[in-house]
């Protein structure tokens, strides 16, 4: 049986018809398409979740720089600051921020991470789901439900929008990751299917047009710090949606608009490092210094 699930309305309709939560619909479709059981789908998600937790743990304990030397010790600075006890954030949000930097720095130093949806945006979903699950004492099953919900959001978006900075800019990487995290968080709080979709919609609207302009073409500047920002931003999307605040523009139309904006975006702002931050005097200087270093 092939069920048409090209857009969010299709998925919501199935959920309403079958009286299921979105993660249950996703599990069912995934099991059907891959000819495996829903238990096996959940086992695979658990493996991803475990890898995310390992990346956080390793990242929190490392100050090793990336191959380029451009990043690698910012998470350690946060850890130190929080040991001193001073912060505007509660413990939960401190952890969201720390876990996000821990993961994305682990990526930059050639550590092991789970792409989510991409390597350059790998800190956002795990930091939100894992840090907040810890504070709620949410068990592993709940975390898996949350991660499947996040994955479903990315999967439906990717039916229309290529999740690659080179095709549609960073809106399609860190932007989509934030929408996934927001939706996963609403699932963790047992919000309604509509609230889950709204969390993704509200989050996506606010990152429309985000460019991909990495210095020297590396997944480091601005990607590392952007992961930290986006993690906290995703929490905002979930918070608004759980207050029943609705996106005026339906999510399927938002995704169409992102595709359009991605097509209109100059190729110079799509991972080619020919404009934006990469082309600033400082960006160019770093690029030249690295080229010299590597030509030796």
């Amino acid at each position, binding site marked *: 049986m092939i069920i048409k699930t090209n857009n969010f309305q299709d998925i919501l309709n199935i959920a309403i018809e079958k009286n299921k939560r979105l993660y249950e619909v996703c599990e069912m479709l995934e099991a059907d398409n891959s000819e495996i059981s829903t238990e096996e789908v959940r086992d695979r998600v658990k493996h*991803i979740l475990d*890898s995310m937790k390992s990346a956080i743990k390793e990242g929190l304990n490392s100050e090793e720089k990336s191959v380029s030397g451009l990043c690698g010790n910012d998470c350690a600075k946060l850890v130190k600051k929080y040991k001193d006890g001073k912060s505007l954030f509660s413990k939960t949000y401190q952890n969201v921020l720390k876990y996000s930097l821990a993961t994305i720095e682990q990526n930059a130093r050639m550590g092991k991470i789970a*792409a989510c949806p991409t390597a350059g945006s790998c800190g956002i979903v795990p930091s939100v789901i894992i840090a907040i699950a810890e504070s709620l004492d949410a068990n592993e099953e709940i975390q898996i439900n949350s991660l499947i919900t*996040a994955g479903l959001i990315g999967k439906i978006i990717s039916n229309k929008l290529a999740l690659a900075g080179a095709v549609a800019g960073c809106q399609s990487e860190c932007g989509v990751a934030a929408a996934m995290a927001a939706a996963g968080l609403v699932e963790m709080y047992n919000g309604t299917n509509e609230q889950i979709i709204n969390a993704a919609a509200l989050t996506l609207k606010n990152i429309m047009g985000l460019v991909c302009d990495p210095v020297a073409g590396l997944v480091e500047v601005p990607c590392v710090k952007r992961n930290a920002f986006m993690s906290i931003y995703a929490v905002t999307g979930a918070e608004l949606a759980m207050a029943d605040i609705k996106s005026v523009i339906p999510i399927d139309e938002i995704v169409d608009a992102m595709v359009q904006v991605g097509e209109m975006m100059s190729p110079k702002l799509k991972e080619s490092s020919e404009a934006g931050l990469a082309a600033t005097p400082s960006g160019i200087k770093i690029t030249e210094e690295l080229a010299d270093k590597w030509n030796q």
Partner: protein
Amino acid sequence: MEKVKTLFDIIGPVMIGPSSSHTAGAVRIGLIAGNIFGEIPSKVRFRMYNSFAKTGKGHGTDRGLLGGILGMDVDNDSIKKAFDNAKKLGVDYEFEYLEDYNRHPNSADIILEHPDLPKMEISGISKGAGEVAITKINGYKFNINGDFDTLILIYKDKPGMVYRVTALLQGQNINIASMHCDRNAKGQEASMGICLDGVLPQYVIDELAKIDEVYLIRNIEMLKK
């Protein structure tokens, strides 16, 4: 053929960073190329082009390609130490960094040597999000992306070869997902790449290898994803 996306294309793969196209993609190109060659080479030369050449050192593209050749998959912690591992195994490696805008932005040629095997040259591209394709083997066009078990043949071009190969596959009731043939000139050498929906038993591969006109045969397993 557009692959149907699964949940695990979005959450995952578990991989060594920092880039799905420049690191994981490089590992996969190396891994498939190594499987096609069939042995850990004694000598391997990589020609990296364009973005691979420009940003490859910072992204670990060089270590990824080499790690793949040594049999490492995208989540192998040793990718970072691929240079050391190669030295320990006595693999002589070399990288060239080139610009050629007729080539795909993320592409590499891999030239593999081993005392017991004919030298091979394999080219690949990284298409983004960890998706890759082997585009050329010894000058013949292929399109091997690791999504299927793939049978690769290079043989003397003569009538009836496609029938002889596919008849043996049909005997196993294995469906062909896609097939691609190429040749250098009529009556000389030709190539065949066949993506399969099932697993080909070894004895069928042995049967195919017995065909006089077949110079090279490899059955490449699909990538773990």
